[in-house]
């Protein structure tokens, strides 16, 4: 026992170093392909800035987003006639600073994206793994339920779900996660089914790995690439859908500075105060665009088929 131990230890250290190197190489390769896509890099930079802005919102924002300056209703942006230097992007109908609300709004949108994707991803992966691994009745059952969810337009389904759960940010996120989930289930299931019969899985099975280990430790890591791409897609969809729900009055409730909700509140001023309508939408567009750019870059870097061409 004692004399074999140093050897094993050395072996182990060597193996670990090797795998570390391999991971490093993989990451390097990933970054190489990712950075080939200039758009993706720009997207990543913009996205990072948005994250920083959201995290440090109280430090960055010039005003408290909820304070109503009663003497400054609908002040235009600073460069327009009648603008005030204190309100760079103007104020809304009850005298709140637009810029500060937009900055705080970034928190909500990013939070929505993270939470929705987490719920949809975890739920979808688990269901997809089970469906693809177990097959049979369980598979049929799960996939039919996903078919049912996909038979409705996603926004309509989310709308009804929110009506049932009650309007609000949290309920909107749950509803959106539910309607985005089937894509993860389908993706995972397809990946699992193609991986299941591969040699390494069969080897692990022969070596006596349990179902749980097989599903999560052996198969799952090999399905990660398409899931990451889908997750980025869902991230931007979640932000758009949450904003749409807010716009229809069923998402975050005022006075929350969520961008979609701000747009809904601003609608009545569409023809006289362009800034209250323009900026929240622009914020949504920039955020979603940045994420989609990153998503395209990720797909290029992770999808071997496209890499080749």
């Amino acid at each position, binding site marked *: 026992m004692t004399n074999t131990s140093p050897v094993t230890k050395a072996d182990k250290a060597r193996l670990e170093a090797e795998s570390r190197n391999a991971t490093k190489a993989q990451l390097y390769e990933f970054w190489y392909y990712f950075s080939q896509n200039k758009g993706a890099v720009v997207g990543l930079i913009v996205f990072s800035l948005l994250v920083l802005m959201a995290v440090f919102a109280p430090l960055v924002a010039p005003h408290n987003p909820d304070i109503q300056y009663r003497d400054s209703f609908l002040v235009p942006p600073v460069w327009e006639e009648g603008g005030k230097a204190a309100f760079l992007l103007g104020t809304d109908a009850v005298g709140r600073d637009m810029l500060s609300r937009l900055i705080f709004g970034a928190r909500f949108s990013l939070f929505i994206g993270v939470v929705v994707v987490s719920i949809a991803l975890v739920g979808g992966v688990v269901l997809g793994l089970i469906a693809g691994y177990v097959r049979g009745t369980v598979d049929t059952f799960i996939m039919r339920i996903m078919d049912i969810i996909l*038979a409705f*337009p996603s926004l309509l389904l989310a709308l009804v779900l929110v009506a049932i759960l009650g309007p609000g940010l949290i309920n909107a996120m749950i509803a959106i996660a539910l309607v985005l989930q089937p894509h993860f289930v389908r993706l995972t299931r397809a990946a699992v089914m193609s991986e299941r019969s591969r040699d390494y899985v069969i080897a692990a099975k022969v070596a006596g790995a349990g179902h749980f280990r097989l599903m999560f430790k052996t198969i799952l890591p090999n399905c990660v690439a398409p899931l990451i791409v889908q997750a980025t897609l869902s991230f931007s969809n979640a932000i758009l859908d949450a904003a749409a729900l807010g716009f229809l009055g069923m998402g975050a409730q005022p006075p929350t500075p969520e961008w979609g909700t701000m747009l809904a509140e601003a609608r009545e001023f569409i023809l006289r105060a362009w800034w209250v309508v323009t900026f929240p939408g622009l914020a949504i567009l920039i955020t979603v665009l940045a994420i989609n750019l990153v998503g395209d870059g990720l797909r290029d870097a992770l999808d071997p088929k496209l890499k080749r061409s």
Partner: protein
Amino acid sequence: MFRFLFGRLGLLIPTFFGVTLVAFSFIRLLPGDPLDLLAGERGISPERKAQLLAQMGFDKPLWRQYIDYVAGIFQGDLGTSFASKKPVLDEFMTLFPATAELALCAIILAVCLGIPAGIFAAVKRGSIADQAVMGTALIGYSMPIFWWGLLLIILFSGILQWTPVSGRISLLYFFPQPTGFMLIDSLLSGEKGAFLSAVRHLILPSIVLATIPLAVIARQTRSAMLEVLGEDYVRTARAKGLPPSSVIGLHALRNALIPVVTTIGLQVGVLLAGAILTETIFSWPGIGKWLVDSISRRDYFVVQGGLLLIAGIIMLVNLIVDVLYGLINPRIRYN
């Protein structure tokens, strides 16, 4: 082929029943009820409420209500709108042409611009033109369309005053609507200017609704073209010295279009979801707005019937796409 068709239909049956079950349970889970809402501050006595709920069949056991509902579906009876007291199916039939007209115009716009844009970008791959087209497509794809619609209204209706703000046709015109499609009806009416007015009213909503499908189709066409252009037979055709236009037109395009057709089919759900927002912005009297209003009014049978009808349309279109795909590409049938 028939086995394939029946297989697909067989898959639809459980989904269909699932959809009925979902629509059925949703309205029973919605908090509040139409009677309280309708009575408003005036209120309604509990006895009278119970009586009216019984009139709508809500006093029966749940399983019985469900059976009645499904039996009704097969007889074309989806219940009565609580607000208007009219059959849900009749309301749907009067409003659906408006949505269909808008959606068709949008999809035609998306296809007519999206496919050429995608081909162009693929052929000019890597050029500035390619990047510009794909950049625009990505912006379109990231667009919050409810905001996009508002922007277009500000610009074209507010500042430039080129297009009307809302509605389907100018109030000056009033003519029979045998089809419900304003473009056709305005032509049939023979009234001068009616068709133009209908077109002017359609422009902005169509653009808004077409934005996302257009972007998706352009991107999809480009990547499908790139893939096909790299295939052996296209290289062979090129090597044989065929002119580039014939290579692209005859060989590549036909094959590249197969996944694009699927994409177009899948856009139907996107269009219907988009119609909810577009119709709300432009006061377009279609089913999207009808359903949103009915949800907030708790108009039970409209929500229940409307959900079913919309899901039915999506399932039907998906089936057609599936079958078409199976026809074009026989390999799929055996998967």
